């Protein structure tokens, strides 16, 4: 996978296969700590304990289930190659939580890539499942919640409409662009704002 965004798209398909009706994608980037984490949490059927033990082993897992194969293995390899960590927590009947951590500046860390395209492609494959995407970058935060769209339209099928998806794509692109600019005024939380002023003085 050339982009972390493609891993996110791939892993989220497992959640939908597991019958989840809510998927939370949370990305946290901290340039000072030089850390980046990607977490995909769902309320799907979960993974039985005996399978969880070697869930990232492509050979063991593909033989026992079709819903996980190389996807988790590749995601894990990418994190471990970047002084990071990789964890899968799951409880049958409650859901699964996949978390990859990277050293953000590591030379081998794949770029995040095109998150707006990943989000709309996820929505196209999600049916009526809810997607909550949270992205934090040095204290600035962007949140997209698909529930807001279906509520606005009062129609669970609103996200199958290509015109709505195009809107979502631009909304996500602008939101991410905004948090990528440290000097953007409106979304800066108090602590960061103070720090910036002190830094300039």
């Amino acid at each position: 996978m050339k982009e972390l965004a493609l891993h996110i798209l791939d892993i989220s398909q497992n959640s939908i296969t597991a019958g989840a009706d809510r998927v939370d994608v949370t990305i946290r980037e901290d340039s000072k700590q030089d850390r980046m984490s990607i977490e995909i949490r769902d309320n799907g059927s979960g993974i039985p304990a005996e399978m969880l033990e070697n869930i990232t082993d492509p050979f063991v897992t593909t033989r026992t289930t079709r819903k996980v194969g190389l996807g988790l293995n590749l995601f894990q390899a990418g994190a471990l190659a970047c002084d990071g960590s990789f964890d899968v927590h799951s409880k049958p009947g409650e859901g699964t939580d996949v978390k990859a951590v990277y050293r953000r500046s590591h030379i081998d860390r794949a770029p995040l890539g095109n998150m707006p395209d990943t989000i709309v492609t996820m929505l196209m494959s999600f049916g009526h499942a809810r997607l909550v995407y949270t992205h934090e970058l040095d204290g600035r935060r962007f949140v997209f919640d698909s529930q807001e769209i279906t509520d606005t339209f009062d129609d669970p099928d609103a996200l199958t409409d290509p015109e709505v998806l195009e809107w979502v794509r631009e909304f996500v692109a602008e939101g991410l662009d905004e948090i990528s600019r440290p000097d953007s005024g409106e979304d800066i939380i108090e602590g960061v704002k103070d720090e910036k002023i002190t830094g300039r003085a």
Partner: protein
Amino acid sequence: MKKSLEELKAIRDKKKAELGLRKGKNGYKVVVGMATCGIAAGARPVMVRLMEEVNKRGLTDVTVAQTGCIGLCRLEPLVDVIDPDGGKVTYVHMTPDKMSRVIEEHVIGGTPVRDYTMNILDGQIIDPVVRED
């Protein structure tokens, strides 16, 4: 310009006026392979182009869907086009530009694009000749 909720509401009100237009699902169904193999091979840009074409051309009765791995990973990205009578054509090694051509010639024009199809001979899948446009 920040995307506003007002803009979204305007889309909603317009959709309400067109109510029923998208309800008739009697048209073509386009299915994109979205397993790990498909995604790694480039299914996402194909999917996004499909969305753009459906939007741009106002194809209200086209259904877009996904499928998992069907065991032909070497031919990904794979796209199935299913016509209103249930006939299925499988396209292989898809790209966004190939997707546009399939929409234009097959989904709108009704004629499958033979350059991109998968061929089966004596039960064996014959890899398509790679054509450079």
